[in-house]
Structures are given as C-alpha cells and as structure tokens.
C-alpha cells in the first residue's frame, strides 16, 4: 500500500529517528510512505480565532499536494494523508474540518491560491499512523514481531493532540485504548496510569520553562510510580518536554530518577528486529539502551 506522507519540520531534524523508524517499520508491514512533494510547514498550532482564515492556508496547501499526487500517479486513488507528528495531525485535521464546514472560507482560500493548479475540494482525509495500524489490525502488527519485549513495562503517553478536541481525536478523549493495544501487539506490557493524556506544557517550554518542568515532573514520576520502565510518545514536542527537559527537572528535584522517553515507532522497529541505525536510540536524550539491555532486550 502506497500512502501520501506528511513529515513536518521536526521529523526532518531533531526527530529524524522518529521518521526513520516509522518508515522502515511500515515497510515490514507492506506500507510505503510516499513523501508529499513540496510540502510546507503546517503552522504547528491550529488557528482558532473565528475570523482568521489566513493561517489555514498552510495546511490546505499540503492537501492540494495530495490531490496532485493522485493526479500525477504517485499514489493510486489514495486521498488519505498520513502523519506521524501529533501536532501536525491535529493542525491539518482541524483546518480540513473547518474548510469542509465553512465552504465560504474554502472559496476564499482557493481564490487566494489562484496560482495553484488544483482547487482544494475538501476530499483529503488526515490520518495518523496509529490509525492505519489499527485499521490493518494489531494482529497483523503482531505477526512481524521477532524480538520479544515481554519484560518491558511501557507507559503510553497520548498527550493532547491525538485525543482532543473530540471531533479530531483518534480515540475516546477520556478512556483511550489504541496506544495500549499497539503496545500489547509488540509483546510489551502497557501500564495503566492517570497522566497518559495530561498536557506536557507544549510551547510554554519556550517562555515558561518552569511550568513545563513542573508538569514534566508530575507526568514522569506518575509513570514511574505506576510501574513503567519507559514512556512512549507520538509527539516531538512532548518528547522534548518529557525527555530533554529531564535535565531541568533533575536540577529542581535532585531526587528525581530519569526515565527514557521514546517514539512509538522506535519501539516497533525494535520489536521488528530492525537494526540500531533504524531504531535510532542514540537520538533520545535519556539513553534507553541501558534499560533495554537490563531487560534482556538486545538493541
């Protein structure tokens, strides 16, 4: 299956190991990510003001690229746009919903983009990689597992953008299970914990680091108290706040013990027996390798 793929800015830089592990794991499952030609930044955050149409331009332009890919035969009748990053997923999906609901806005946007060869018609569907896996069946994922992770207790961290608001979420906003099902399919043990969808502070990490440190401390210690060895995420911003910011947490709370935070696709690549170049655990701030080896999992 060939599917249009939107990487977004961070997957091409600090989260390169997220992209690599996703692409290679997907290949094992017979899914080929076809990167959008000439994709542009989605804007990271959804435009919320009712009169602000301008900031929907960037997301909608990416959807026009999907239509072009279908026109040019890069994919065959596949109007789903796959995302890995939760922020991109949320922003693209919310913009798509807005222009579908407010046809006048779509007309304004299309008029403004008169140089584009195709008008956007609202026909693209934004989809997250976890949804594709769920759709093909987690039993299928299970079949590709060659390395057992049965000793590993994993805390799924949904964060905000995969679940909220409800009309965008990939699962129930309060009681999601998709991430747990995914972890189980990899033979690891999902941990139930109450901070799985608590906000990490998002962009406040730029101007309000202390807030992010407090939130991170609460989220991470809760995961540890719930028995987790490791946390998995789908968002490069959460990853920065929960992984890299452990340095700042440790400074404020010296008794704090570090816990590795990895992308869900890294864990998948590991379970699929892919090479260490693909799993890319050297890209994480808190080293997960020592922990994995202590659980008899060879990286």
């Amino acid at each position: 299956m060939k599917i249009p793929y939107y990487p977004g800015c961070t997957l091409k830089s600090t989260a390169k190991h997220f992209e690599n592990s996703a692409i290679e794991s997907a290949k094992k499952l017979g899914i080929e990510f076809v990167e959008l030609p000439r994709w542009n930044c989605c804007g990271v955050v959804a435009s919320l003001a009712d009169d602000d149409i301008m900031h929907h331009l960037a997301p909608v332009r990416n959807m026009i690229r999907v239509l072009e890919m279908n026109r040019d035969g890069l994919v065959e009748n596949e109007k789903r746009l796959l995302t890995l990053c939760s922020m991109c997923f949320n922003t693209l999906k919310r913009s798509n919903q807005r222009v579908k609901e407010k046809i006048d806005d779509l007309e304004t946007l299309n008029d403004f983009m008169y140089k584009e060869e195709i008008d956007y018609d609202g026909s693209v569907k934004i989809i997250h990689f976890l949804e594709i896996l769920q759709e093909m069946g987690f039993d299928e994922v299970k079949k590709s597992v060659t390395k057992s992770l049965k000793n590993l207790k994993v805390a799924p961290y949904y964060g905000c953008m995969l679940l909220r608001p409800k009309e965008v979420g990939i699962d129930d906003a309060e009681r999601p299970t998709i991430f747990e099902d995914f972890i189980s399919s990899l033979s690891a043990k999902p941990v139930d914990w109450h901070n799985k969808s608590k906000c990490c502070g998002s962009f406040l990490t730029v101007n309000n680091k202390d807030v992010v440190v407090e939130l991170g401390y609460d989220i991470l210690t809760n995961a540890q108290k719930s028995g987790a060895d490791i946390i998995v995420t789908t968002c490069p911003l959460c990853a920065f706040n929960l992984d890299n910011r452990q340095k700042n947490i440790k400074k404020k709370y010296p008794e704090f013990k570090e816990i590795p935070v990895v992308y869900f696709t890294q864990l998948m690549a590991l379970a699929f027996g892919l090479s260490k170049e693909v799993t890319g655990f050297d890209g994480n701030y808190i080293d997960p390798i020592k922990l994995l080896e202590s659980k008899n999992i060879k990286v």
Partner: protein
Amino acid sequence: MPKKFIIDKKSVDFFKKISELSGEIITLCDQCGTCSAGCPVIEEMDITPSQMMRMVMLGDEDVMESKTMWLCATCNTCTVRCPRELDVSKVAEALRQVKLRQSMDKLNIDKIPKEELAELPQIALVAAFRKLTS
C-alpha cells in the same frame, strides 16, 4: 473580594468582540468550574478559566491584564469536558488575539538565551511564535 460591576456600552462591546473572535456563545457558561478543575496549569494562573469566562461574560476588560490566557497551552482538556460544549481555549485565543492584533507581543526572541534557542526544536519555536506574537 466582591466587586461591583456596571454593564455599559463599553463592556457590551468588549463582550461582543470576544464572542465574535472566539465564535463561542459565551453566555452558555454555567460557571460549574469543570474547566478549572481539569486545567493542568491552573496553579500558575492568577484567575481560573471559569473566572476568565465570567469576566468575559460581563464584559470586564480587566481580564486582559490576567496571566491566564497566556498560560493556556490549548490542551483542550476543558473543551472535551465542558457540559455546555463550550470551547474555553477559543475564548483564551480570542483574548490573546485582542492584544496581539495591537502588536503587543508576549514573546521577544531577543530575550531567549542563545543556548536555549540552540536546544529548542523548531516545533516548539514555531508554536510559541504563532501563539504569542502577532
């Protein structure tokens, strides 16, 4: 401390402006406090999200001086829990927009230490500048 508030043309105009920008029917708010109860950053705020809603409902422009709207990271926890299906995060966005559209930026790139800038991923920087600058 109780405060006497007189509703006049100025307050009505302010209320209408925030209603328009947010696209929300703010008077639907029951003041039940569910948004405040679930807010992950409430401890840092000077007024709670429900107090923010109440002030907007009255058209009290003092709400513009509060820190609350700048601390909302749009996590949407309140949005999914509001029994009146109000989107409080859109009201916070509307309040921010009133300031930002007067070019009153909340974030100054010169004030971020260089070593911090080098460390921050672009997803954080783009999001922060989209939310906190005009």
